[in-house]
């Protein structure tokens, strides 16, 4: 067997590992095994690549490769081990961004290394795609990271003529791409890279904090495609397949997420959603409408003597890192014989599926977590819905107010329960900036304060009740 055939075979095994990794994620039971298959595929591919003469014949470069890997591992392992589960979205963003950056650099270096720049058009197009998509992904992910890490405001950043400026940068890149195809040169390619980085930044600026997770999923798909493009550039089937797998699955995931938010992808990307506080649902919800607020003791009694309680966690719970306290409350109630379940909206938390990760971290068995479709039929027989730091995902305006910005978004129907308890910091509207009529409903009791403090008080009060 020739070395080339052996290489193809080994890389094929790695690809099978990647597909198994994706396949494993269709159930929580097999997911971890799948991820291990993916990691094994990666290790096999990297180990075999070391045996290739291209990689090991130049000893200085080989040493640099090893040093680079050691440096990368030394940074990545502690970062990945120590990150808090609530900070997971920005961690994924940054790991995604560096992948995009690497893909762009691989394409650039493969171009610089060409002995003659007089190459087939398809080759230069492949290189350009790798540089362009990879750079957009890198810069976009960096801004997404800054937004989620609160290094900058999470609100959409808009300025006059934004669309026009974005359009001009896009056109500029297009012009440069055509120029590079016409007469390929390294300076032109580097210009494409620079302008693509700018595009990545200005593309992400107008996207609001709560929409950023969908954006990360999209940028993840971008990085996959950048890797595939770089794979075309260096004739590597392995890179093409792995990159395309991610590109396709990432695109599908992005679509599923935007459906869960009841909005189209263009709307999420281009509408600067949440930049203006609108008062669509209801008559400008301020002090003019009566609100009933309760003490932790009142609410503890309500909960302790209920038959069935739904905990509806949201972004506020994630921000307050109150997932452990929420579980303590659930345990305290269950000890008293109350039936408790968690009703989880697909986009609750800071990232789709994020709430499940947080509650899993707090040792909540995943069969107590009910997805929206599963939880909604239970609402009419539920005595108390305890809404912790969620607002938009339970706002009936999504069902009843056709003019509302969130109209059409699937919600958790807490309005069908007997009693609703809202734990919120204030009467401020949720991310979408829409007033929630449910806050003024006669069956609603408000418990103001930080989610974690309030939950701690509730746990004590329930134990005393």
């Amino acid at each position, binding site marked *: 067997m020739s070395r080339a055939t052996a290489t193809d075979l080994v890389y094929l095994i790695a690809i099978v590992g990647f597909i198994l*990794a994706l396949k494993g*994620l269709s159930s*929580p*039971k097999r*997911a*971890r095994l799948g*991820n291990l298959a*993916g990691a094994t595929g*990666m290790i096999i591919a990297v180990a075999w690549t*070391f045996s*290739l003469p*291209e990689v*090991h014949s130049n000893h200085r*470069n080989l040493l*640099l*490769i090893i040093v*680079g*890997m050691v440096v990368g591992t030394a940074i*990545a*392992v502690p970062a990945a*081990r120590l990150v808090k589960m609530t900070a*997971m*979205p920005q*961690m994924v963003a940054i*790991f995604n961004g*560096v*992948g995009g950056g*690497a893909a762009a*650099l691989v394409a650039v*270096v493969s171009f610089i*290394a060409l002995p003659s720049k007089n190459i087939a058009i398809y080759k230069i197009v492949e290189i350009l795609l790798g540089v362009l998509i990879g750079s957009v992904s890198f810069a976009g992910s960096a801004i997404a990271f800054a937004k989620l890490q609160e290094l900058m405001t999470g609100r959409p950043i808009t300025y006059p003529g934004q669309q026009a400026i974005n359009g001009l940068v896009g056109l500029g890149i297009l012009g440069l791409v055509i120029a590079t195809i016409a007469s390929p040169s390294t300076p032109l390619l580097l210009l494409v890279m620079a302008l693509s980085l700018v595009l990545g930044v200005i593309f992400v600026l107008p996207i609001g904090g709560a929409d950023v997770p969908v954006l990360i*999923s999209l940028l*993840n798909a971008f*990085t*996959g495609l950048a890797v595939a493009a*770089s794979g075309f550039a*260096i004739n590597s*089937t392995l890179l*093409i397949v*792995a990159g*395309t797998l*991610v590109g*396709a*699955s990432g695109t*599908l*995931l992005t679509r599923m997420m935007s459906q*869960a938010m009841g909005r189209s992808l263009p709307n999420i990307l281009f509408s600067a959603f949440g930049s203006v506080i609108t008062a669509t649902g209801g008559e400008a919800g301020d002090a003019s409408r009566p609100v009933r607020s309760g003490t932790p003791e009142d609410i503890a009694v309500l909960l302790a003597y209920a038959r069935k309680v739904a905990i509806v966690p949201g972004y506020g719970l994630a921000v307050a890192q109150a997932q452990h306290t929420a579980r303590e409350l659930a345990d305290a109630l*269950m*000890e008293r014989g*109350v039936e408790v*379940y968690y009703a*989880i909206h697909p986009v609750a938390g800071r990232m*789709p*599926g994020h709430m*499940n990760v947080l509650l*899993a971290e707090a040792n909540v068995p995943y*069969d*107590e977590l*009910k997805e929206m479709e*599963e939880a909604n039929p239970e609402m009419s027989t539920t005595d108390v819905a305890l809404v912790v730091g969620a607002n938009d995902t339970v706002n009936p305006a999504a069902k009843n107010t056709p003019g509302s910005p969130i109209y059409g978004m699937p919600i958790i129907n807490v309005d069908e329960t007997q009693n609703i308890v809202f734990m919120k910091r204030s009467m401020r509207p949720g991310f979408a900036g829409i007033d929630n009529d449910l806050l003024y409903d006669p069956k609603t009791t408000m418990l103001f304060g930080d989610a974690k403090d309030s939950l701690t008080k509730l746990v004590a009060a329930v134990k005393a009740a």
Partner: protein
Amino acid sequence: MIATAAGPGLMGLITVFVLAAFVGYEVISKVPSVLHTPLMSGTNAIHGIIIVGAMLVLGEAHGAAQVSLGFLAVILATLNVVGGFVVTDRMLEMFKAKPAARKPAAEASAAAAPGASETGGSNGAAS
């Protein structure tokens, strides 16, 4: 037509690309929303395969520009691949181990106190 002696040629690569796109689409179409975050981070780790590309270009690099950019590519790609897999494994570990350890206890307490509520969600039907 364009195929060269070495490698599968452009058409071969495009074929692979199209087929991989369908596989990627099919294979995750059944992922429950519970696992969306690990899925994002898992696919993130897989595109870390760019590490192989980074190794190949740095291995053959000549001159300061190629070597320094290639070196940077290796570092970035390593961050991607190592960070991606470690973070995903950390998340999935929580999903897998805890319910198995906790569930028997929950069932035991339910059995000990008859009339106490069901804690499991497997019986989705509300009577």
